[in-house]
């Protein structure tokens, strides 16, 4: 690490398009009622292709990225959390959840106007807080119909027909429920289309992440936060799948031309869990040392679907379309959809942190990582689950680890100065000093 490399850098051409897609998503959710459409609310992992069968005039709001957007707005963020706390909710609960409830209680929509009330709730449940999150929403707004699918059927290596049947059965029940509460006739063709979009979007995102194995990395994680988020909003939408293909092509081009995300890349890191959204400058600070975070299981595997390729490395999961799976009916496409989602990397540690450790160590090897920053995130029990065991496993595998404590959405639990001090110490541990020209 003694010689400081210099690489060409340039902004992403499709950056503004990503921002535009995100802005339009929140505005469409707000305004869809003007066109006689439907609004639904649910989590970022909701099986969103299912309500897509209700029609093209259906818009969603996914709760975690919505709350993360508020976290970036410190004034509104604290107002929301305090509103939830005044209702008696504990301060150590998920900060996204408290923020979301607060936005509802205060009737303030982060993208302007009052909070647009959903027509129904379509949620998934794998974290203890998922279905309970919306149970509380229905305590606040008692007339919103609510359905949640339990997706905690076991880890990918144990998938069998019984587990797939469980998810499929719930989704079939959910479709009947959707028809009943909306009075609409369900369109299986729209479901099939949405599932195909999601297979495509989540596989292509994994391909983009895999391209970041290149040295220098074409993307840094701070930028990836603004890109992966589209998959947490509407991974079943054609617009997202199409955008990811465009992004993939651009990233490929960057790799071919040796364009770097960080000009003096000489140290590659990965992080873990959601970052403290109000303090992303931490990632920019690293660049001064020539260090780049090339991703995390969070940015890769929250929506990205991977598989082990013939050479033994991780790459994008082959879509059911490319694998020749018959997707021609409601039941058939839902089986493929259930199986696809049960392979989600970020669902595996809910059964064992050791499965996550294996994936993180794989990332360290294949993405040529020099060290790992673990965000002990007080704001999210789901993704912080087992993080201490991940730390032990990474150390045992020979990777330096920087644990830092914080909260993705509650700045009252993040100590910036202390974190920066720890970053400095970590850089020193990795024998890095600031690059004069960075």
């Amino acid at each position, binding site marked *: 690490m003694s010689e400081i490399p210099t690489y060409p850098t340039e902004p992403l051409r499709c950056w503004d398009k990503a921002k535009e897609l995100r802005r339009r998503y929140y505005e469409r959710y707000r305004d869809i009622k003007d066109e006689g459409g439907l609004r639904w609310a649910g989590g970022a992992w909701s099986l969103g292709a299912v309500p897509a069968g209700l029609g093209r005039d259906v818009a969603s709001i996914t709760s975690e990225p919505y709350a993360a957007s508020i976290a970036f707005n410190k004034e509104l963020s604290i107002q929301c959390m305090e509103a939830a706390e005044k209702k008696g909710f*504990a301060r*150590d609960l*998920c900060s996204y959840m408290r923020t979301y409830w607060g936005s509802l209680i205060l009737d303030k929509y982060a993208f302007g106007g009052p909070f647009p009330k959903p027509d129904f709730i379509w949620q998934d*449940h794998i974290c203890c807080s998922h279905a309970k999150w919306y*149970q509380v929403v229905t305590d606040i707004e008692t007339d919103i119909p609510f359905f949640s699918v*339990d997706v905690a*059927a076991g880890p990918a290596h144990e998938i069998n027909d019984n587990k797939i*049947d469980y998810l499929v059965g719930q989704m079939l*029940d959910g479709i009947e429920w959707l028809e009943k509460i909306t009075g609409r006739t369900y369109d299986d063709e729209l479901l099939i289309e949405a599932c195909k979009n999601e297979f495509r979007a989540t596989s292509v995102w994994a391909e983009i992440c895999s391209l970041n194995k290149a040295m220098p990395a074409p993307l840094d994680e701070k930028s990836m936060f603004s890109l992966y988020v589209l998959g947490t909003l509407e991974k079943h939408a054609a617009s997202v799948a199409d955008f990811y293909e465009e992004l993939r092509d651009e990233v490929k081009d960057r790799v071919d031309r040796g364009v770097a995300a960080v000009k003096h890349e000489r140290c590659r890191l990965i992080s873990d869990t959601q970052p403290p959204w109000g303090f992303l400058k931490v990632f920019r600070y690293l660049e001064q040392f020539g260090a780049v975070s090339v991703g995390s299981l969070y940015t890769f595997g929250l929506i990205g679907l991977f598989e082990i390729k013939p050479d033994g490395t991780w790459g994008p999961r082959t879509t059911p379309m490319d694998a020749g799976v018959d997707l021609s009916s409601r039941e058939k496409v839902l089986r493929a959809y259930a199986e696809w989602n049960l392979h989600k990397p970020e669902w595996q540690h809910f059964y064992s942190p050791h499965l996550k450790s294996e994936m993180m160590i794989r990332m360290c090897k294949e993405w040529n990582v020099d060290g790992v920053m673990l965000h002990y995130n007080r704001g999210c029990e789901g993704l912080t689950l087992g*993080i201490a065991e991940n730390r032990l496993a990474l150390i045992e595998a020979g990777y330096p680890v920087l644990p830092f404590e914080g909260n993705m959405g509650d700045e009252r639990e993040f100590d910036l100065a202390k974190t920066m001090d720890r970053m400095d110490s970590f850089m020193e541990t990795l024998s890095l000093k600031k690059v004069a020209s960075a």
Partner: protein
Amino acid sequence: MFERFSQIRKERHDYARAWKERTGGKVLGYFCTYVPEEILYAADVLPVRILGSHEPQDVTEPHIFGMFCPFCRDCLAQGLKGRFEYLDGLMIAQSCLHIRQAYTSWEKHRPVEFSHYLCMPHKVKSPRARTFLTGELETFKTAVEKWTGIEITDERLHEGIAVMNKSRDLMHRLYDARRSDPPRLTGTEALEVVLANQMADKREHSELLEATLERLPDREVPERASGTRLLMVGSEDDDMAFFEMVERVGGTIVTDDHCTGTRYFWNKVETNGEPLLRAIANRYCDRPPCPTKDWEARDRIEHVLKLGRDWDCKGAIVIQQKFCDPHELDIPATKKALEDAGFPVLILEFDVTVPVGQFQIRVEAFLEMLGADDLF
């Protein structure tokens, strides 16, 4: 009358070791009351619940982040300190995220010959959950057969179900004895029995309990004021010191909604001619739910209110294990429902050790408030 139950609780490890010595059988430690003990009894395995020791400890910090509940860390500490070294097996039924970390860390760092993560469904109110759980129980049964070398026939399953159901019947009779005024036993004594029930061979526990229940009607109620009748609500609660304190200062705990209490034994396996694993699955889907499984509708609150009414409670103490998200998510709605139904509520946050002195002041104030009607 309750000394033997108390002895089993206090000397749980000696009890399990002696059981192994006497029977030559295998002992399995489990973490959550959704574990289907029927199948374990059918295979001559002794299931023992892993609970903490209520001591400050410093061994779990490298394994579980401090934002997770102190109970799960206390449980893991027991394993890391080697207090359950006699275990042959370890298992968990999927419930909250917190306690499963105790299982996954224990499994890795103190491995035993058999371990199993039972994928208990969360959406227990869906009919799909019963079919799914039946399949998961089939997988579990096969794994236990392989481990023990014992074929779990229907006859054996019937026996396992009978052992568990008899114990549940007896526990109901014990709790029913607390409906009278004054109750025939204190909450502290009931806690000794229900905790011992989770540590002892059910067959032995049932014998002891049957004998106790026979003597109970003739028992002279302990020399103490009958006390203000209280309902306890919350997650697990095996904090004997807290129970003793409440009953020392004028309360009498007459029932509870705890997973160390009624939620553990409340309902039975009803076979009704159904395949036995399906019947077992039905029992675990139908039991009073842990908050992790109480959605989309809130059914738990109705059950809590019924307990309060049926046991003629004057107030409720809601205990909150620090950082226990599932219960934190229920508490505002539970508190409101209890208060609307006329049960004043005291909420206390628990840790591995509780500040008995401070809590005593709060409990005394609560009891004084409950007694205000008598004064004026």
